[in-house]
């Protein structure tokens, strides 16, 4: 077991190395002058004319061969320096760390209802196969699955912000932002809801919930579809197993057979899908955060990608890969606990 985990973790550096090579190669397709912009503290800096630009390219070694420049960058990364993000006007690591709690808060709040709803709907659809609950749930999921996140998000804004003014975009209202950034408010975790509770400030708590509601509903709806489908298929498979027939033949009540015997085993494939989906969501919910102007990792990544802010893109890419590999490993390690038939070799 431990052996297996170690072997999987050994893969991580290889994946990270290859990934960083790939993104770095993309960066190197820009001319040295374009890449110089990342080092310029202000636009005036580049107005010194051709001569000073040439001198600065020399100074930062932007004309050096690929492997030397890559070596310099990876050396920095290994000593904990991911570089400077022009978009955030901050070091990349500082930016990523300050945005991580915001994304985590959003993702966790969306993931829990998503999982519960998927298990409930999927098992119901499986039990009532080809009867009306199944049809309704199938249509609900296929609609959700086809709904573009940005269209759904904009509809949410149209109804709950423009028309009703319940759920405004952003992370906090102006007045709450002033409280949070003031010295009296202690930032324990960086997640607004938790910090507000810890500080005992209920007004800020309510305000942050109001800002979270729309993105949480959006994320839940678009993500619940795929998990529900897996749950339904898996429920159908399980209900056909011999042990379920045995339980029925013993004369156990239908509910007990369906919920105790069948649903527990049907949960297994859902655990895998849920783990993968959680990993992808923690890697930044790009479109949702952008629509609701929710300052998290996804919105940051989108901005840096559009600006070709490569130090930040590289940093984000490394973070994403680590989250993905570690989350998949956790799912793999939990799996044998859920299902004793599976032995990790």
């Amino acid at each position, binding site marked *: 077991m431990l052996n297996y985990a170690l072997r999987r973790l050994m*893969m991580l550096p*290889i*994946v990270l190395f*290859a*990934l960083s090579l*790939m*993104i770095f190669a*993309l960066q190197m*397709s*820009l001319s040295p002058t374009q890449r110089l912009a990342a080092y310029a503290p202000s636009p005036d800096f580049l107005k010194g004319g051709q001569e000073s630009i040439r001198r600065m390219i020399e100074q930062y070694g932007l004309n050096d061969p690929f492997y030397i420049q890559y070596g310099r960058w990876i050396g920095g990364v290994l000593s904990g320096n991911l570089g400077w993000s022009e978009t955030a006007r901050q070091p990349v690591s500082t930016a990523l760390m300050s945005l991580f709690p915001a994304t985590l808060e959003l993702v966790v709040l969306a993931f829990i209802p998503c999982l519960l709803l998927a298990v409930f709907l999927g098992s119901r659809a499986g039990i009532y*196969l*080809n009867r009306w609950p199944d049809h309704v749930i*199938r*249509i609900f999921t*296929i*609609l959700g*699955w*086809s*709904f*573009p*996140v*940005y*269209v759904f998000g*904009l*509809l949410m*804004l*149209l109804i709950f*912000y*423009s*028309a009703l003014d319940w759920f405004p975009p952003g992370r906090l209202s102006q007045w709450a932002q002033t409280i949070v950034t003031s010295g009296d408010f202690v930032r324990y975790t960086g997640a607004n809801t938790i910090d507000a509770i810890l500080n005992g400030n209920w007004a800020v708590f309510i305000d942050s919930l109001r800002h979270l509601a729309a993105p949480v509903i959006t994320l839940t709806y678009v993500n619940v579809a795929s998990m529900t489908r897996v749950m339904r*298929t898996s429920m*159908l498979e399980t209900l056909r197993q011999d042990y379920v027939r045995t339980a029925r033949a013993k004369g156990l009540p239908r509910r007990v057979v369906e919920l105790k015997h069948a649903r527990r085993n049907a949960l297994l494939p859902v655990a895998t899908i849920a783990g993968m989906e959680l990993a992808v969501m923690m*890697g*930044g919910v*790009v*479109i949702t955060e*952008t*629509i609701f102007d929710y300052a998290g990792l996804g919105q940051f*990544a*989108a901005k840096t*990608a*559009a600006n*070709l802010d490569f130090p930040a*893109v590289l940093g*984000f*890419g490394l973070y*994403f*890969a680590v989250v*993905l*590999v570690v989350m998949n490993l956790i799912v793999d390690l939990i799996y044998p606990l859920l299902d004793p038939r599976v032995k990790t070799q």
Partner: protein
Amino acid sequence: MKVLRYLARNPVSLVGVLILLAFVLIAIFAPLLAPPQSFQLSPYDTPRAGFLATPMPPSSDAIFGTTQGQYDIFYGVVWGTRTAFKIGLGVVAISVLVGTAIGAVAAYYGGLVEDVLMRIVDVFMAVPFLIAAMVLTALLGKGIWPITIALTTFGWMSYARIVRSEILRIREMDYIHAARAYGASDLRLIVLHILPNAMFPVLVLATMATGSMVLSASALSFLGVGTEEGYADWGQFIAYSRNWIVGQPGNPFQFWYTLAFPGAAVFLFVLSWNLVGDALRDMLDPRHSH
């Protein structure tokens, strides 16, 4: 015949096929539905009725209204159908070719070749898809081709995985052993006996992916790195509507048409591909038919 009987029994799938058919017709007859004007350089440049920023509601001149910058929404939705087909089918076709080739080579040669190829697949799988596609599109410039290249570069992996595992599964089946005993060559085995049977799951995946690739392409436009200003592209039009979500006080739904028409187009397009993909899977995979 089998297809027709299936559709008769599954009205939801039938709806999917009909919507898709409607989109095909819209794409084919786009020049008749929304004739380009003589001064347009390309039919994909949406005509605009002036340069005023504020959208105009549906009228006899523009039956879906005009969006930000007075671009005609009806024209954009009609010609955007062609854009959607081009990107969706283009990305999926190239991805299937690349993925199938890599998966087949990996399964056929095995050993070190397989290890290296599948590790490359792993690395690409660990890439944040949308962000990587944004970066590549931003590097290549705006337009259909950069989008297609970017989405293909980061979207071929699942085909390679499926083709490889299908080939490994089928290779051990009795009819393959029989064909080998008859003296069929390796190439003949792969191309004539193994690949055709391995293609069914690929077909299902490709059908579903066509819709989601159009979603991703629109998302790129929405995030600001997709097509040029005014290009007939649903994502671009949805991006315009983002600035007009809030109407004037007392009239919250004032600019509903800027979102409703392009939004409905993307939604129905993706929905139809998903329904067709679902139906294909039911028909091709006996485990799913009940």
